């Protein structure tokens, strides 16, 4: 177990290092000079030089990479080119929106997916099952940004129940904050709920086919009782994997939804920073997101190995 753990840890670190190299050097190629963006169209060449000097853009790329990486390790993410504030502070501010949004969306997704998945597995082949499966097909097919636009149209513009975007800040009250995250969370949750419901249903069906459950049914448990007492627990592993992946996806993948609702979250930060050539912010946020995904995968793998020793030898 320890050997497996260390091996996985090693490959995790290798992935992170390669990812950081890729991110840094791809962004080095991005055409566009942060200095000229900041100074606008009438700036003179000497002004630009002065600013580049100030921002440290005159150093050679390997030096900049090293100082970036050593900063990341020690928690110093550098200073944003455009806002001139520490990147770490900006990221943590944005996380206060992205993280609650991801959790909120995930909760909605789970609340919808569990009953839907369990009941349609329990009544496989029934009208209910067909209906749910049809609905999930539709849920997967709807682009979430379009769904978001429709939500805005009905609930913000027509009914005035919610605001069409923006975030008042948590200091304006928790309820106000949650209210402004509600439409985005629903828009994000719908496709995720559809996927989750399908995964839950099929993994329940797989477990139900296994011998011990057949035995349990033979002993007189109804299908529903069998699901609740035995199958659900055993079907959880693939479901938890999906939930883990969805969480990291929601953290990074909310970018378009954050744009639709003008939420100052992480994805929007990256998008703005790319437009403003605030590369140091882009690099750091991307690295953070990659880190999140790699950690989730790592945790899932280690959990698997712990639960099921056979997994240690092979890979999914």
């Amino acid at each position, binding site marked *: 177990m320890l050997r497996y753990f260390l091996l996985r840890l090693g490959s995790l670190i290798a992935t992170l290092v390669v990812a950081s190299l890729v991110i840094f050097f791809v962004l080095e190629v991005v*055409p*566009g*000079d*942060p200095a*000229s*963006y*900041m*100074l*606008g*169209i*009438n*700036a*003179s060449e*000497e*002004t630009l030089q*002065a*600013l580049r*000097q*100030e921002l440290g853009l005159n150093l050679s790329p390997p030096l900049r990479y090293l100082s970036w990486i050593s900063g990341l390790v020690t928690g110093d993410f550098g200073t944003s080119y*455009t*806002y*001139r*504030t520490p990147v770490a502070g*900006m990221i943590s*501010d*944005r996380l206060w929106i992205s993280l609650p949004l991801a959790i909120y969306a995930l909760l909605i997704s789970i609340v919808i997916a569990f009953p839907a998945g369990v009941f349609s597995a329990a009544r496989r082949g029934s009208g209910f099952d067909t209906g749910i499966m049809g609905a999930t097909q539709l849920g997967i097919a709807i682009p979430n940004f379009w769904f978001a636009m429709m939500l*805005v149209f009905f609930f*913000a*513009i027509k009914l*005035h129940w919610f*605001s*069409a*975007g*923006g*975030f*008042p*800040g948590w200091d*304006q*009250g*928790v*309820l*106000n904050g949650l*209210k402004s995250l509600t439409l985005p969370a629903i828009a994000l949750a719908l496709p995720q709920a559809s996927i989750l419901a399908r995964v839950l249903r099929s993994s329940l069906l797989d477990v139900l086919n296994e011998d011990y459950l057949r035995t349990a049914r033979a002993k007189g448990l109804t299908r529903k009782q069998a699901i609740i007492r035995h199958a659900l627990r055993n079907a959880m592993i693939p479901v938890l994997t999906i939930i883990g992946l969805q969480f990291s996806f929601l953290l990074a993948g909310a970018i378009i939804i954050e*744009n*639709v*609702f*003008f939420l*100052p979250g992480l994805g*929007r*930060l990256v998008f703005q920073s*790319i*437009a*403003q*050539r605030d590369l140091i912010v882009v690099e750091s946020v991307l690295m953070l997101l990659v880190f999140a995904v790699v950690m989730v995968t790592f945790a899932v793998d280690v959990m698997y190995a712990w639960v099921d020793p056979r997994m240690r030898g092979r890979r999914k």
Partner: protein
Amino acid sequence: MLKSFRLILFSLLMLSGVTAFAAKSGITIGMQLEPPNLDPTGGAAAAIDEVVYANIFEGLTRFASDGSIQPALAKGWSVENEGKKYVFQLQENVQFHDGTAFTADDVKFSIERAQAEESTNAQKGLFENIAGVEVLDDSTVVVNLTNPDGNLPFNLAWGDAIIVAVESIENAKTAPVGTGPFVFNNWVQGDRINLKRNENYWGEPAKLESVTFKFISEPTAAFAAMMAGDVDAFPVYPAPENLPQLEADPRFSVVLGSTEGETILSINNKSEKLSDRKVRKAIAHAIDRSALIEGAMFGYGTPIGTHFAPHHPAYVDLTANSNYDPELSKSLLKEAGVGNLELSLKLPPPAYARRGGEIIASQLRSVGIETKIENLEWAQWLEQVFKGKDFDLTIVSHTEPMDIGIYVKPDYYFQYENAELQGVMETLKSESDDEKRTELLQQAQNIIANDYVNGFLFQLAKTGVANSKIQGLWENAPTQANDLTAVFWAE
């Protein structure tokens, strides 16, 4: 259990309700773009001035709503030595927000700082002609010029020429300290900036206690924020398509004013195909300005025929010079002997460019000019078009006041060079007689219009929306600013 739950719910409601019950002594101003920092002397972003100009920072002189130049930190000035020496009398008993006194030394420091080699001032040109600054006493400053210039008070009114203090300049990007009627309070990056009234203001104090600038770039969200009352005024409302709807609502008033934004179809005059005046003339006559203004701006905008603001007294209406005449375009193209003209059209993000670009592309296509549209972010636009000059056509609004001077810089991105115009502008520099200045300016307007340097489209309208009870907002935008000194809520 239930009781404590109710208590929690109640306190949550209270928390959320606080802002709704607050008395109206503050105002929330919507802005489309967030400033990258708050130091107007170290960056070009218009959003910086929209927050700080006349609110936090003041210069020796300032723009008034009608575009005229008014005294600010300078009480008055006299011109000596045939226009080469300005003596400014400063306001006395003025304090910066941090309590330090404003003196002539601050003026010297500010101007010299802007001129310095390591300065990152985006409008260094404004200070080019200044040979030196002398402090006579605490409240008298002399500015010596290399060449006579009647424009100095105008130049010093710009946001890039505001007066800063040596004690506080270091943190101006995130915590600006000025002399203005409002004091910087806090900034939630990505969302809003809050200012508080300066209780020790040297002049007439502001009527509002606090001001919040809220950044909403998405037009749909801007509309919803206005409707919901989250924002009290949007001085430059981003979506002209919603204006009729807002105008019909008695809660709001829509204020139409002018800006300094000449929106032009810039033509790369050094590009092989476009160096021919006939081709440029053909392009100009292919554009239907009224369809463009209707389609891209939903009718808001004034057609222009040259690079000059229509509300300026020296403006000449030259739109007839490039009226919509597709047949003329076709015959001009034939005369010029260019068949199958294919041009690149690179568009920056604003709606006037993106929408306008599609309309112009379609209009050009109907006279036989194909365009290849490329939508760019500002950074790419600056890199490729503005610096790289790698383009045939682009659409951009030139929002600097009185910027016809860009036509005498041959290395400016549209690369126009004309000795006659350069002569006219040179004479203008040292001319201080108003009548003669007007004459020269009109000559310049005619030259560029007749040379079809660029496709002159329309003057950007300032389409502001505000709660009907708000009084005192600027109607026009002589510079990009939201001067809130005189704003108040009517009962």
